[in-house]
């Protein structure tokens, strides 16, 4: 009876007694969710265009951040480091398309998935071989003092991250909607063979989509690197994106955003108000559990395309 009360009654009483604190947790969770969505976007882009679950997205985040901070540490200005790192990510995308994807055209998705596991190990090792495994500080000038709005403590860094993520999504939406390349990408995403039959070159499209995913990875790497320092652990933030993808759907950009917000807010509220009764440190597994509950009702995710197989 006591346990039931601790799970079903006490947390709601705590919320009712301190609604401002609840809103603080909720807003903090939503802002964290934006950071998760930033990583999830890279997965969505590649899955949408090629049907490949890119296991290497976390490694790409680390790889991009290592180059960016490495160039800054060499004394280069931030703008130049950013441009050269984007060029590195373009070269990487071209190399992956030429060396890994092209020889595997028409193979089962599981083969391509295994290939991306190989890419993960390569990127983790190669990046750290070039730049070392030291923790590197990345200061991009975003203030980190808490902002107090109507008595609520809100992290300024998270607000900037949310704005940057919003701009990125807007840029991607415009790119997909209004450019010929974007339209070609959407055509490939809808049907590979139909797209090829009207002359859209699959290899070029794959190189472009891996480049875009690499640039999204760079933005995620800069934001997470500024938050945590650039280090091996950046590759592990992919684990925070997985429940977002399960919930939002693997093929939807809005799904990644909404999924990120739900996961971020859900795990923070759960940790703060239900964590103690469930043993603490629940936010990681809670995110996966929340995603699994959604799966029971919508197996394709909130915004994923419904899979219809006709007999």
């Amino acid at each position, binding site marked *: 009876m006591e346990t039931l009360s601790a799970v079903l009654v006490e947390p709601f009483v705590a919320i009712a007694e301190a609604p401002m604190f609840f809103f603080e947790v909720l807003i903090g969770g939503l802002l964290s969710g934006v950071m998760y969505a930033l990583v999830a976007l890279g997965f969505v882009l590649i899955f949408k265009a090629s049907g490949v679950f890119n296991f290497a997205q976390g490694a790409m985040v680390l790889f991009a951040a290592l180059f960016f901070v490495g160039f800054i540490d060499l004394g280069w200005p931030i703008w130049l480091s950013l441009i050269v790192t984007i060029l590195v990510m373009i070269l990487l995308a071209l190399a992956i398309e030429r060396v890994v994807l092209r020889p595997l055209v028409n193979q089962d998705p599981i083969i391509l998935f295994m290939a991306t596991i190989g890419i993960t190990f390569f990127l983790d090792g190669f990046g750290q071989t070039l730049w070392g495994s030291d923790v590197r*500080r990345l200061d991009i000038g975003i203030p*980190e003092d808490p902002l107090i709005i109507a008595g609520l*403590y809100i*992290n300024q860094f998270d607000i900037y991250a949310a704005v940057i993520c919003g701009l990125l999504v807007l840029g991607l939406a415009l790119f997909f909607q209004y450019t010929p390349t974007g339209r070609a990408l959407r055509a490939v995403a809808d049907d590979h063979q139909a797209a090829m039959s009207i002359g859209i070159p699959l290899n070029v499209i794959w190189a472009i989509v891996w480049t875009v995913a690499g640039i999204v990875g760079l933005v995620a790497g800069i934001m997470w690197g500024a938050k945590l320092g650039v280090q091996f*652990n950046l590759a592990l933030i992919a684990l925070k994106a997985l429940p977002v993808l399960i919930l939002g759907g693997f093929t939807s950009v809005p799904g990644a955003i909404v999924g990120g917000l739900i996961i971020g807010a859900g795990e*923070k509220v759960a940790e703060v108000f239900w964590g103690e009764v469930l043993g603490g*440190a629940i936010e990681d597994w809670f995110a996966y559990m929340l995603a699994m509950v959604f799966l029971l009702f919508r197996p394709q995710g909130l915004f994923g395309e419904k899979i219809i197989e006709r007999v």
Partner: protein
Amino acid sequence: MVNRRQTLGLAAGAIAFGAMPLRLYAQENAQFIPSLVYRTGPYGPNGEPFANGAADYYTLINERDGGINGVEIVFEECDTQYNNDKGVECYERLKNKGPTGAAAFSPLSTGITYALIERARADKIPIFSMGYGRTDASYGPVFPHVFTAPATYWSQATSLIQYVAAQEGGLEALKGKKIALVYHDSAYGKEPIRTLEALSEMFGYKLSLFPVAHPGLEQKATWLKVGRQVRPDWVLMWGWGVMNSTAIKEAAAVGFPMERFIGNWWSGSENDVMPAGDTAVGYKSANFHGAGATWPVHQDIFKHVYDAGKGAGKRERVGEVLYNRGVTNAMIVVEAIRTAQEIHGNKPLTGWQVRDGFENLNLSAERLAELGLADFMQPIRLSCEDHEGGGSVYVQQWDGKEWKRVSDWIPPMRDVVWPMIKESALAYAKEKGITPRSCA
């Protein structure tokens, strides 16, 4: 026609072949020391400076002194990635290497220490878990082969509570205060809880516990609870790796004062504060050895190791906290071997012979000064019963550029800790069917 490259290759091969018997002879008369390290994986950034410090100290002993009393040190690293399975694999691979097998293992992980304790007991190899591992393994009658000098987590917890009490105006002033423990949700992170709970009952402070899931990338919820709901007077942290710098940033984000935030000795390196930038200024941590490269031993390392091009890492990182911890670990192993040689002779020794050296280790202030480490750490004296030795720590504070000592050495509350160690060790012995040896 043999071209120039082939000639050079043949010459190099001949030299290598000619040198082989000499090298084999040298290895036959060498003391083998295995090094379980982690230069890769999520905790690699912290494992690397530690590994470099240990490697540089062993190289220094060989280069400057010609080994330990003429017995050359041969050491080999095995990367565990801070992973228990790999730790056991490394142990099995290295335990029989060298003419007399492994001198001692330093697992460099509480989890790996737990996994190796009974294996090492069966193999008669000492385990030196310096500042980590099982605290109750300090009790020599039950754990004759495990050494925890110079301090354990339980001792450290009592020292930190004494520091907090001193800031508040005495142990009596702790009554009614709120102290939070933010800890890595693992065997390592849970180690101090029992001691802090016991002290809470004694001194009347309220203890709140906040576990953080591995690896600790996201702690916003934890710190909202700490900083905005519980609002403790002090926060102690048992963290590791990225968890530390993230905690510092999140603490700052909820406005928690850094001067009242104290990490344990695994939460107080440059790697923990540098990524947090200015927000880390004022943050404190415990330590059981000096920080910086100002001791004579460091000058010897520069001269005999780095100037000779044999340094394991970057010259400018010599003296960082975790580098110095690697030096400390290697120095204690070397001094234990030296002590064992006084008993068994100046020759390569077996693990069990080296164990005798650990048990009779007497690192006095004079001996530390001879080693170029005066006031670097507190003296250590081990015995059949007490495998911890000293237990003192000091508190250091980050000023944005370097760590500064802000307290004297704080000895542990032995009257609190030692009965707990003994009770826990005897319970372990009963559970495992071990008959404690007599130290009378």
